[in-house]
């Protein structure tokens, strides 16, 4: 049967007439069919390049052209520096630039050093183990929901002050100061860093699995070094270069963040990204030109900050090398260990407290200041929100579900193609570097251009365009999280399945992929959360017509109605949390009678 099919295909490929005799078991044909099959594995990788990388580069180009005055829609077909001059002369640009620079530099450094300190001093603490265990659930909290919850918890009239007043603070009324919206963007930096610590820890744990961690600790201890000293002198110098890409992603995100900056950043003037966002949505199209220049400026700023980080990293490594040469063994710092373990607990407690405060606010009817809890409760806010949230909820579910599923299938096919054929290895690094572009470029620097391209093609404002926009960010995250487990899969099991079944499809569908079910579910939950949290891509590619939970939550947050904010924030949180719970439960339930699958030893 198979031979007949092979021969038929061979005839078609060579345009031979049906009567033409072909040797039935010809090795040449088998080789030909096999090579055709091999090329089929190219399809997902080529699609990846075509649908993700090319449009990002085109979007970048379409941001660069208006930044230099080329904008045919306004009749501008000559290149000029005018948009840059307009940008410099626009009111509020310099303070906005300072806010963006300061908040991004501070938040990136704070998050990185906090994460490194946690590793160095709290590595064996129960707090870090718990944080590591619940990292995915902490990561899945959307930025906007996190900021809303933090605002409700720590605002001058927030829950914490209410709990402590008046018995501790003496305040009968909420204080007039506010920690959010400071003109330097310090509050924005703090909230950003709180959100980036789990991300950097997540990347660090993944990188550490490639280092001889236990052996280094054993060796260092045998030479009389303290654990913290071993981390600083041996492990962190190796870890830092592995965290360059995540640091670049953190910097690029921080410099272009809009949703978080709207909620906790200054408003007059806002950060540069928020200012550019206002110009882009301005009804007067002329604002697009300086907005494009500003988007390019964000890209230059992120390159500048990243270069600064590289220099700092080099200096740090030189200092550590110098210290290592001195042979100072160091001593166990009890206080530092306790403080950092406490900060890990703090991060977990803060995340839980944020969830709780949103829950309380969402049911609060009357909650006068000083009262620790609302004096009367109501479901009205949920009922009102249910009416308005139906469509955003549906959009969010559809977009997140589809982008996570499509992205997972796509990434799995690409990774399998890479494993099946050596050719992919040579292309892996440059292809991967390009795939991570959406993460390492400030979103505005290419989304401006992508949006304009979609307008030209009349594709903007459609669900499909937004879905593609989400895939731009979901796919790199999927690659980042899935490539490790996929590449480390014990290929001998696949080889056995192949030899036993005689079919690649059976070996993949019945053995390899079911054995990888746990990592698949895990990354699916992460991809879902990434899609739910998308703000700029939804706003720009949806042309304001596609409302999701995130766009609505950010809109609500700028409105100031705390109860509605809490309901929207909770919904935005609940979806990824539910999916995450489901994705933990599903493999556990499916393999509840298979202890080896619960240990996750093979996958």
């Amino acid at each position, binding site marked *: 049967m198979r031979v007949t099919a092979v021969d038929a295909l061979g005839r078609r490929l060579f345009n031979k007439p049906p009567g033409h005799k072909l040797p039935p078991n010809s090795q040449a044909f088998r080789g030909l069919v096999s090579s055709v099959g091999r090329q089929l594995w190219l399809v997902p990788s080529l699609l990846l390049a075509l649908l993700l990388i090319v449009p990002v580069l085109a979007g970048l180009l379409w941001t660069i052209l208006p930044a230099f005055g080329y904008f045919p829609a306004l009749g501008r077909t000559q290149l000029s520096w005018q948009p840059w001059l307009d940008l410099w002369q626009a009111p509020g640009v310099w303070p906005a630039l300072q806010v963006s620079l300061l908040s991004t530099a501070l938040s990136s450094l704070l998050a990185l050093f906090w994460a490194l300190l946690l590793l160095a001093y709290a590595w064996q603490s129960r707090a870090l183990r718990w944080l590591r265990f619940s990292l995915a659930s902490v990561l899945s909290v959307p930025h906007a929901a996190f900021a809303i919850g933090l605002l409700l918890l720590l605002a001058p009239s927030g829950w914490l002050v209410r709990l402590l007043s008046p018995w501790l603070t003496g305040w009968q009324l909420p204080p007039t100061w506010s920690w959010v919206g400071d003109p330097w963007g310090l509050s924005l930096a703090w909230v950003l860093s709180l959100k980036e610590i789990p991300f950097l820890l997540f990347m660090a744990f993944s990188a550490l699995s490639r280092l001889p961690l236990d052996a280094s600790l054993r060796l260092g201890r045998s030479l009389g070094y303290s654990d913290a000293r071993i981390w600083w002198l041996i492990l962190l110098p190796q870890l830092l270069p592995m965290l360059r890409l995540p640091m670049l992603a953190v910097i690029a995100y921080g410099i272009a963040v809009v949703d978080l900056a709207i909620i906790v950043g200054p408003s007059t003037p806002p950060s540069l990204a928020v200012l550019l966002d206002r110009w882009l949505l301005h009804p007067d199209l002329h604002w697009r030109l300086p907005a494009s220049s500003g988007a390019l400026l964000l890209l230059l700023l992120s390159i500048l900050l990243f270069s600064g980080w590289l220099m700092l990293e080099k200096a740090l490594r030189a200092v550590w090398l110098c210290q290592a040469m001195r042979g100072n063994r160091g001593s166990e710092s009890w206080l530092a260990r306790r403080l950092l373990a406490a900060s890990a607990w703090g991060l977990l407690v803060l995340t839980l407290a944020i969830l709780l405060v949103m829950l309380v606010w969402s049911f609060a009817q009357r909650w006068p200041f000083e009262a620790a809890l609302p004096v009367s409760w109501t479901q009205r806010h949920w009922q009102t929100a249910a009416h308005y949230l139906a469509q955003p909820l549906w959009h969010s579910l559809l977009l997140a579900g589809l982008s996570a599923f499509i992205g997972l299938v796509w990434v799995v096919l690409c990774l399998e193609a890479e494993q099946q054929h050596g050719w992919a290895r040579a292309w892996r690094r440059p292809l991967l570097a390009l795939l991570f572009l959406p993460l390492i470029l400030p979103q505005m620097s290419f989304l401006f251009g992508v949006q304009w391209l979609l307008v030209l093609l009349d594709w903007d404002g459609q669900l499909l365009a937004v879905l593609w926009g989400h895939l731009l960010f979901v796919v790199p995250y999927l690659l980042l999280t899935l490539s490790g487990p996929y590449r480390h899969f014990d290929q001998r099991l696949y080889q056995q399945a192949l*030899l036993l079944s005689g079919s690649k499809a059976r070996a993949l569908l019945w053995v390899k992929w079911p054995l990888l079910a746990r990592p698949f579910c895990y990354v699916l939950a992460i991809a879902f959360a990434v899609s739910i949290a998308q703000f700029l891509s939804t706003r720009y590619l949806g042309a304001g017509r596609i409302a999701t939970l995130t766009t609505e939550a950010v809109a609500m947050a700028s409105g100031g109605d705390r109860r509605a904010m809490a309901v929207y924030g909770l919904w935005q949180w609940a979806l990824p949390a539910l999916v995450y719970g489901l994705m933990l439960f599903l493999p556990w339930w499916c393999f509840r009678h298979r202890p080896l699958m619960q240990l996750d030893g093979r996958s």
Partner: protein
Amino acid sequence: MSLVLQQLQLWLGEQPLFAPISAEVEPGQIFSLMGPSGCGKSSLLAAVIGDLPAAFRLQGDVRWAGESLLAVPMQHRRIGLLHQESLLFPHWSVAGNLGFALPAKLNKAERKLAIEQGLIKAGLQGFADRDISSLSGGQKARISLLRTLFSQPRALLLDEPFSKLDAELRASFRQFVFDLIAEQQIATILVTHDVQDCPSAPLRMG
């Protein structure tokens, strides 16, 4: 109908791993290969099943019934491979592992019967629904062999399958393997570093 290794030699870069090997393995015969670690024994088996890593270069030919297998994809060569580790699939029971290897044309009742009879032959009656984590090393080795034979291979490659078993278990499992090979008339290549595992004088590599 025999498995033929024709002047088979592996190269790593410009370095040959071993001198060319030629052998004709008849059904039911066991061709033993011995050599120290790193001499290329397992790579030779990988070449025979068609799963040689890209870093290696293969010279010579592998033939079955006169037909070269080199261009035939691994999954269509119908060669079984038994490692020193059982490599049972952890997401299935014993029956699931065995059933996966049985030909697709069998119906449910035939599959059940085949599994029961196989388990009786292996001295593991009533083990069908057991999880593989509950099996001992020897039991896993037997199930693994049974699973390989259920796929009806025309040749069998044994990559140090006895090396992880203790002395007592090793002898009984060895006998079980050799008996099944003789009974099912399968051409077999055995790779080992222990001369006691070889049923006949081995070819020494390296």
